[in-house]
């Protein structure tokens, strides 16, 4: 719900008891006014009746009058000093509807005889009064409602404009272009505060981002030099003819671990760089060509495992992708298809303009989809040389280039399929 709608709603809800109270007060006031007037009229009428009865009975005799509105007859009751006026209900004769009445009763002594005088006045107009007041209040409420709506619309159009433009900016923010984002001054204090905070925040995020980027790159680079030192020393050590077998073995294992470490660092750096969009390009290339290149390059490995390759290239799968990332994407997928294949197995690559699919035979069980693209999650029986980053890199490239990748494994055939989003 919009903030403005909400405040309006609360405002209107708050108005209801206020209007009700106003209506009640109004009704009460009117009703008091009406009662006073009726009472005066009743008393006035009573006085006239007393005068009439007095003159009618001055020479003795009783007077009795009985109409629906006026009752006058002698009683054996003590005389009351003042007339009592009260509200009561009675039936209207013609349609038998109960109506409110104002009734005056008084026992007065006329020419020595106590008479009970009862005079009633219909108060039908009072019922109408309640309806009238309710109507007025309802009209006020509706008027208020409409006026508030119009005001809200105007307010939301003009007053909230700066807020909306800031929001739009935040929505379109890209990390690399954060440097150029600036939230302008407005003539509303609250929005100025908000924009100032947003400015500080974006600047902070940008400088953190730059630092982070530099740190990742520098850390990766700084690691390569000591690795190079160890690598070179190992290579020199290996030249020593006095080494025994176990020493040579130790050196070789060290060298292998070293090159794995170096590969790992490079892969992490690559991941970071893809995340930072440092491989943006406007040129498009053909994934089919890249695949052909790697099929040739991996020829020895394919032959070594006696794997047969089936290809069906019906399109090129042209895509805006940095050549380095295309290499990484294809070499990881094809490399895995070879690495996890069984001896004498098969790889099937089919490329159309819309779909890139690579499947391979394997004795390995289906990869848990939960861990498929997770960093450092590799199958328990994967070769030592695996960095556990290959598919993470693939996924990162897919995610940053408007592609989707799906994986399925059935009857010993594992298949990855890339489609455009």
């Amino acid at each position, binding site marked *: 719900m919009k903030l403005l709608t909400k405040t309006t709603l609360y405002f209107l809800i708050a108005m209801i008891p206020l209007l009700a109270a106003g209506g009640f007060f109004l009704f009460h006031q009117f009703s008091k006014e009406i009662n006073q007037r009726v009472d005066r009229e009743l008393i006035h009428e009573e006085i006239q009746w007393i005068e009439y009865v007095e003159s009618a009975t001055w020479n003795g005799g009783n007077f009795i009058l009985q109409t629906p509105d006026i009752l006058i007859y002698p009683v054996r009751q003590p005389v009351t000093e003042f007339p009592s006026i009260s509200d009561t209900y009675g039936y209207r004769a013609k349609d038998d509807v109960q109506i409110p009445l104002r009734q005056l009763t008084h026992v007065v002594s006329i020419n020595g005889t106590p008479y009970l005088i009862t005079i009633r006045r219909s108060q039908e107009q009072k019922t109408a009064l309640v309806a009238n007041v309710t109507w007025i209040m309802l009209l006020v409420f509706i008027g208020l409602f409409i006026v508030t709506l119009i005001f809200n619309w105007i307010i939301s159009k003009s007053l909230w404009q700066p807020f909306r433009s800031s929001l739009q900016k935040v929505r379109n923010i890209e990390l690399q272009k954060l440097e150029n984002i600036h939230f302008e001054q407005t003539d509303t204090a609250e929005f100025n505060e908000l924009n100032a905070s947003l400015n500080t925040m974006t600047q902070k995020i940008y400088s953190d981002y730059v630092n982070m980027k530099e740190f990742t790159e520098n850390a990766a680079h700084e690691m*390569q030099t000591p690795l*190079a*030192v*160890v690598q*070179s020393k190992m290579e020199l050590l290996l030249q020593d003819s006095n080494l025994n077998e176990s020493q040579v073995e130790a050196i070789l294992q060290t060298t292998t671990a070293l090159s794995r470490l170096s*590969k790992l660092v*490079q892969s992490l750096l690559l991941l970071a760089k893809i995340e930072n969009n440092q491989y943006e390009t406007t040129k498009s290339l053909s994934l089919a060509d890249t695949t052909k290149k790697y099929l040739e390059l991996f020829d020895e*490995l394919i032959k*070594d495992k006696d794997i047969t390759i089936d290809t069906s290239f019906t399109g090129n799968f042209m895509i805006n992708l940095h050549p380095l990332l295309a290499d990484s994407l294809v070499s990881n997928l094809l490399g895995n298809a070879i690495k996890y294949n069984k001896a004498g197995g098969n790889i099937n690559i089919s490329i159309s303009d819309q779909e890139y699919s690579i499947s391979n035979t394997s004795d390995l069980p289906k990869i848990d989809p939960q861990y498929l693209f997770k960093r450092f999650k590799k199958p328990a029986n994967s070769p030592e040389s695996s960095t556990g980053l290959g598919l993470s890199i693939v996924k990162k490239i897919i995610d940053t280039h408007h592609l989707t990748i799906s994986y399925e494994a059935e009857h010993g055939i594992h298949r990855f399929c890339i489609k455009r989003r």
Partner: protein
Amino acid sequence: MKVLIIEDEQALQQSIQTYLEHQGFICEAVGDFLTGIDKIHQYQYDCVVVDIGLPYGSGLDIVKELKNVESKTGIIIISAKNALEDKLKGLELGSDDYLTKPFHLSELNARIHAIIRRRNFGGNKTIMFNEISLEPEALQVAVNGKAVELTDKEYQLLEYFIANKRRVLTKAAIAAHIWGDEYEQVSSYDFIYTHIKNLRKKLIDAGSGDYIKTVYGTGYRFTDS
């Protein structure tokens, strides 16, 4: 052949120097930009191995300076940065090659050999090892003057072996040199064996000595002793 090594990491500098001297180069090694600039002004080198990140300056400026003085020196950049832009920039400035750390010393050595040979305009480019001779431009091999038919891979292997003669070469280094970096991490290097077996057989059949020795569990060594 004289090689200048400009690398600030002492241990690496020493390793390179040791290896190259073993392979018959005369080496000088310096550890910072200023000494490096001094050296290239004072002496003529066949090849300069230069790191990009140096104290007091960038290795790229040394490349520029060498190009300014129109030196015939071959240049190979060794850098921790694997960034494509750095590579392109180095090559654009006139460097002959670019090697990313960490690298195999045998790889660096093979590349220096190739650069010096390429730069040796008009000179004799034939690579000789006893009775074996290689013509790099024609990719031809002869034993005692008699041509031997080799595949591309076999030729590359032989050239790599001769450049790194008498050194133990690991299978990983060989695979990375011939088939590319992707091959450094494969689980089995059995495929190398096939190529080496064929090369060895062809050379012996042509009448050369049996120079390719298997170093058990490690790799191979090309040696006449």
